């Protein structure tokens, strides 16, 4: 069974909390209670990082392909699939991947391809493509891939439309000045491509297709849950207007809360209300047996600012836009503007280990983050460039066994007797 976007659950809401409403409650009553009860979902971000610090430590983007060794590459992807399988067994709600180019940090230039592999080893959790870089790719092709993924996964696909980071616009020769508008148009086109029942043409600003008729169609109707990358107020506004859920990555809690607050206001202006599981946050995480172990992981987690290397070398050469885009007031725009606002060491909020500590500490951090931001899905990466595979796997297991069971209830409201009675009557 699949969760629907409006927060109602086809599984019994009584399964969601200890003292739930009676399973005998019918449809709308159950949905009314379920809408208030949106327990925290956890997504394992499967990065397929290349298991060699030599390549990871190359300063600047792109990393020369000469540093790639086949045996390490094979070991890396086997490890990534093992991590994903483990996450599934531990009870993560989603296993995710993301498109990135020309770097050993995330060896997933084709997120759909990797997600297809995940769909065959992850048997229970949703397959979350968070996401394709829609500013740089053929939107109709993306729609076709998403439909195939939903089919291959048996209707478990979740997708988030990403714009990309400045260095990556160089990968396919995309004009950085145009990427925001391209992302918006592509997102609308992909949605229509997955839902229009008849062949249609598209006359956009950046895309023209005279015949679009996607086969197969998605399993989930009208389409899989769709999120939009919202690391700016402008993007959050667009997402709200187009009835897309929202994902924010790496920013500190106060910025996330600011964006989510704006997003909810805009949603209300457009006549709808997002549920908590339509508010997603991506972060880095490390869990140690105790604070001392966690601190040791934190000290080496980013492997000496490997992530910062993405924005050096050719990655630093995204030129100032010829026609400056509307300045963003929050965080670091994908054009590289306003890098100070998010307080991250690199920009975009990158380089900060958002959740780190013993299991007790991480539970508290996640609860506080939810309290501040209202986020209902956390998409977490355990694979810092400086960690060994064993260290990452241990961190994943600690999280799965000692944190995950204790955070599921976060955001799940237990209805009062009065509410249960009112819903049953009504």
């Amino acid at each position, binding site marked *: 069974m699949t969760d629907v976007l409006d927060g109602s659950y086809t599984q019994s809401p009584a399964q969601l909390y200890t003292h739930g409403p009676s399973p005998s409650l019918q449809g709308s009553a159950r949905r009314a209670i379920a809408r208030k009860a949106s327990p925290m979902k956890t997504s394992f971000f499967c990065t397929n990082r290349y298991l060699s610090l030599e390549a990871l430590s190359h300063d600047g983007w792109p990393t020369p392909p000469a540093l790639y060794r086949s045996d390490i590459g094979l070991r890396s992807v086997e490890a990534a699939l093992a991590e994903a399988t483990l996450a599934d067994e531990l009870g993560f709600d989603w296993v995710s991947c993301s498109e990135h180019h020309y770097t050993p940090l995330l060896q997933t230039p084709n997120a759909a391809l990797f997600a297809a592999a995940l769909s065959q080893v992850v048997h229970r959790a949703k397959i979350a493509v968070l996401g394709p870089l829609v500013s740089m790719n053929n939107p109709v092709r993306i729609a076709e891939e998403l439909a195939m993924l939903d089919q291959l996964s048996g209707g478990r696909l979740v997708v988030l439309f990403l714009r990309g980071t400045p260095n990556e616009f160089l990968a396919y020769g995309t004009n950085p000045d145009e990427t925001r508008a391209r992302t918006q148009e592509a997102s609308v086109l992909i949605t229509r491509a997955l839902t229009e*029942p008849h062949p249609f*043409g*598209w*006359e956009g600003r950046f895309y023209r297709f005279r015949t679009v008729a996607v086969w197969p169609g998605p399993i989930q109707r009208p389409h899989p849950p769709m999120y939009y990358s919202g690391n700016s107020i402008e993007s959050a506004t667009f997402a709200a207007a187009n009835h897309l859920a929202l994902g924010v990555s790496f920013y500190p809690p106060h910025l996330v809360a600011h964006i989510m607050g704006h997003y909810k206001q805009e949603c209300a202006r457009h006549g709808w209300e997002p549920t908590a599981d339509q508010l997603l946050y991506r972060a880095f995480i490390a869990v140690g047996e105790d604070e001392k172990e966690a601190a040791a992981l934190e000290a080496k987690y980013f492997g000496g600012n490997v992530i910062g290397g993405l924005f050096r070398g050719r990655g630093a050469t995204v030129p100032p836009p010829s026609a400056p885009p509307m300045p963003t007031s929050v965080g670091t725009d994908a054009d590289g503007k306003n890098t100070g606002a998010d307080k991250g060491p690199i920009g975009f909020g990158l380089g900060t280990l958002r959740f780190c500590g013993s299991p007790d500490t991480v539970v508290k951090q996640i609860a506080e983050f939810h309290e501040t931001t209202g986020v209902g899905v956390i998409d977490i990466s355990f694979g810092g460039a400086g960690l060994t595979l064993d260290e990452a796997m241990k961190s994943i297991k600690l999280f799965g066994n000692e944190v995950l069971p204790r955070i599921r209830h976060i955001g799940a409201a237990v209805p009062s007797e009065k509410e249960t009675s009112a819903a049953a009557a009504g």
Partner: protein
Amino acid sequence: MSGGTQGSGGSSAVFTEHFVNSSGRQIRFLEAGRGQPLVVLRASDALMPSGLNSLLAEHLRVIVFEIPGTGAPPTNGPPPSTRELARTMAGAAAAVGLDRYALMTTNASAPVALWQAIDSREMVEALVLISPSGVFSDGRPGDPELERALSGIKTSTLLLLGTEDDVTSPDAGRMYVRSIPNCYYVLVYDAGHAIEAARPDALFATVRDFLERRETFIVNRGSTVINP
């Protein structure tokens, strides 16, 4: 006959006003351009040459007919049915000397054009509907008889709808597509009901391509060579 009216949309076309008789009514029309004929049906409050018509007049012979019912001349009398209006417009086109022509319309004039394409199918060789309304009940009165007759349209039809159209819903757009056998359905991104106001270049490019190449407009013939 009045003097010419300069076209809009940056076009150099000059439209001249004329009158012709059909079905006992005097029909006003504007004409510009040379070449393949395009008949455009407009309500009288929209009879000034639009940017789209002006640009098309640089490539085609554009004849913009005023659908009688409002406006000059005052002798038009009580309003006929939509189907009768369509016969009147077909008669006007014939009176101007047109044997075969492409037919284009927008918005609430769509039912007249659709009946004309059904009843005068030997004359209408292509049909363009821009933001059509008035056929399917879409919060407003529809036309069930016309709905049933749409399958009788054999001519190639281009239907354009803005993605932000809040008058003709996506569901209504799909019903046109389902009902008209040879219908090419094009969504114009980031345009509301008034596509021409929001995306004039996109509208002109698509309509012109369809009128010049008909069904083969779906084939990309634009060069993608960067450096030969």
